[in-house]
């Protein structure tokens, strides 16, 4: 921001995050397995996956909070093992749980961060950031007394304050209302337009679709990555959308039939998906003539793809 940090580093590599074979175990359990990823500079990279899939651990490895058991790579061109200090100075990390000081006011928290990064005018920087994140009038309020949405804005403000080149956001919008979520994403896009690279983990499909690229991680394995369209195409999933009344019986009958891998209700419709197109069609053939329902071949949604990926990874890694 303020002139754009990338402009100060003309020879910066075009890849912000480049890691290979990251592995990390806690107490004998492998949380991240052989994970490799590349994130282009200036892009918004969505990090998706079920709870406990290793998203937070990966993010912590990237910003030097955890040391990988094996694997290597660079973050902003700095080695993640050796140059943790340099990375920390250039990366803003927003933790999943609010981790600023609850017993400090908005202004005091921001001034603390500004001073810690050695910014020359900490008060001024904090004042500007308060205006930017729309917390004017709440400067003196203790962080503990802020609502979830305001806390999240403050946390984002704190991690963008020292003009980082890379933002690591760990489920930043969990438990935040839709309006605040939308504002938040507008802010993220504005930051990316200024040249910031953003890696953001989330559970929300609509947020995934706001990312330039996404990666899906489950049980420590990176299962799919690319743009949203690429990920959907790569899934090779066939989906039929059923509309009509009374799905309950249909759901129960279809579930577990050979060729049907997934049956999921979406509001007033039902998504029936399978990895083998022919087998799926054979499975649903007996129901297609029933006038109660209307069948239509459709594109799988991102959610279908992810639930399918999650189901498959459960088979592979837990079964």
């Amino acid at each position, binding site marked *: 921001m303020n002139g754009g940090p990338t402009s100060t580093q003309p020879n910066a590599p075009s890849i912000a995050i480049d890691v290979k074979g990251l592995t990390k175990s806690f107490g004998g359990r492998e949380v991240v397995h052989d994970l490799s990823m590349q994130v282009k500079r200036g892009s918004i990279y969505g990090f998706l996956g079920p709870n406990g899939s290793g998203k937070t651990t990966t993010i*912590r490895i990237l*910003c*030097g*909070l*955890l*040391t990988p058991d094996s694997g290597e790579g660079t973050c902003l061109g700095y080695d993640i093992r050796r140059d*943790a*200090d340099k990375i*920390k*100075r250039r*990366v803003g*990390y927003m*933790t999943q*749980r*609010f*981790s*600023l*000081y*609850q017993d400090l006011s908005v202004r005091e928290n921001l001034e603390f*961060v500004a001073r*810690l*990064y050695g910014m020359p005018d900490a008060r001024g920087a904090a004042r500007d950031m308060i205006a930017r994140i729309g917390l004017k009038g709440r400067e003196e309020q203790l962080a503990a007394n802020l609502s979830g949405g305001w806390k999240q804005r403050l946390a984002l403000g*704190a991690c963008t304050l020292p003009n980082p080149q890379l933002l690591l956001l760990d489920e930043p919008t969990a438990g935040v209302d839709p309006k605040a979520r939308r504002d938040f994403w507008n802010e993220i896009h504005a930051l990316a337009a200024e040249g910031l690279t953003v890696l953001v983990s989330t559970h929300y499909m609509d947020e995934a679709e706001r990312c330039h690229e996404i990666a899906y991680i489950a049980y420590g394995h990176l299962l799919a990555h690319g743009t949203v369209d690429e990920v959907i195409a790569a899934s090779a999933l066939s989906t039929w959308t059923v509309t009509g009344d009374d799905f309950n019986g249909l759901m129960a009958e279809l579930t577990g039939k050979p060729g049907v891998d997934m049956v999921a209700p979406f509001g007033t419709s039902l998504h029936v998906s399978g990895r083998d197109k022919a087998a799926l069609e054979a499975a649903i053939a007996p129901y297609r003539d029933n006038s109660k329902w209307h069948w239509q071949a459709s594109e799988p949604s991102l959610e279908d793809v992810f639930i399918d990926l999650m189901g498959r990874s459960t088979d592979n890694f837990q079964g």
Partner: protein
Amino acid sequence: MNATDTMQTSEAREPRFGFWRRSYAMLVKEFIQLRRDRVSFAMIIMLPVMQLTLFGYAINTTPRNLPTAVLTQEDTDLGRSILKAMENTAYFHFVREVHTVEEFDELLQSGKVLFGVEIPRGFERAVRRGDKPALLVAADATDPVAAGSALGALGPLVQTALAHDLHIGDPPDMPFEIRAHARYNPAADSRLNIVPGLVGTILTMTMLIFTALSVTREIERGTMESLLSMPIKPVEVMFGKIIPYVLVGFIQATLIIAIGILLFGVPVLGSLTLLALLTTLFITTNLSIGYTFSTIVQNQLQAMQLSMMFFLPSILLSGFMFPFAGMPVWAQYIGEGLPLTHFVRIVRAIMLKGAAMQNLQYDTIALVALMLFAMTVAVTRFRRTLD
């Protein structure tokens, strides 16, 4: 009516012995948690065992072998016999023999000895002439307990010993008089001893706890994750956490010393500046130790326990409550490792004896060494990652 009754009882029937079952469940859970928390478990065992053995053996209110200096201005048989008789009482242990009054005073003022015996020139001749000369015994009475029992035993014991050894005469008519001089605290007023020591004790307790909780608090509140993701070094975290409390400690110390002077009439014979300077050093040492605890333990409860474990020996083995010289040697070694021991000596020496820096070099260096040691441990122990 009957039907609803049976329905209700079958739906939510209170299990038999419900209270005991739930209490038992709770008890089992607590035991499991306790077993998992190895540090607390170890302390539950260690604390009483250690303290009982430590303090049971170490504390002795009728101390023996107190370090004593001798100022001999004549070398005679009678003088030697008297000294021998004194040493035989086991209260006195002659560590130094000096020949000038200045040396004699310096030893007492710096706390290297607790007693001084002066055999004046012409003592033996005066005894033979029947002049009843005075044998001067000077005691450092800043600690009345240490001085008291030895002084009390002195008269009769020496008298009996001499009567037996030299056949000078029967105890009722001693050929010389023992003149005991309780220096620095002539009235043996224990407040004069307690108040300066309390300055150190109170500071130890408050300072330790301030910093002992500091790192674990960050971890427990989750703020450590943010802090570690920012470019800050362990030494910086440490100084940032210690320095505010140096000021707090200084205010506290000023308050205690002011109360000591105004309410208890404790004098400050030495330099106030020196007292302030060394008190600040002592505060910083304690804060460093508390901070070190904070980097070792895993939660705030452990931090409190560790602080208490440090605090109790500080009170009991530092010479604050019980005479240091009366403790066995191994307990004295432990005492030397506690900052309070050195500060109690410093603060008593400055306030009650008017000691200057050159009398306090050893204790000052010891405090600096303890502080640097604690800081080094803290900085190396501080975990820079969440691994």
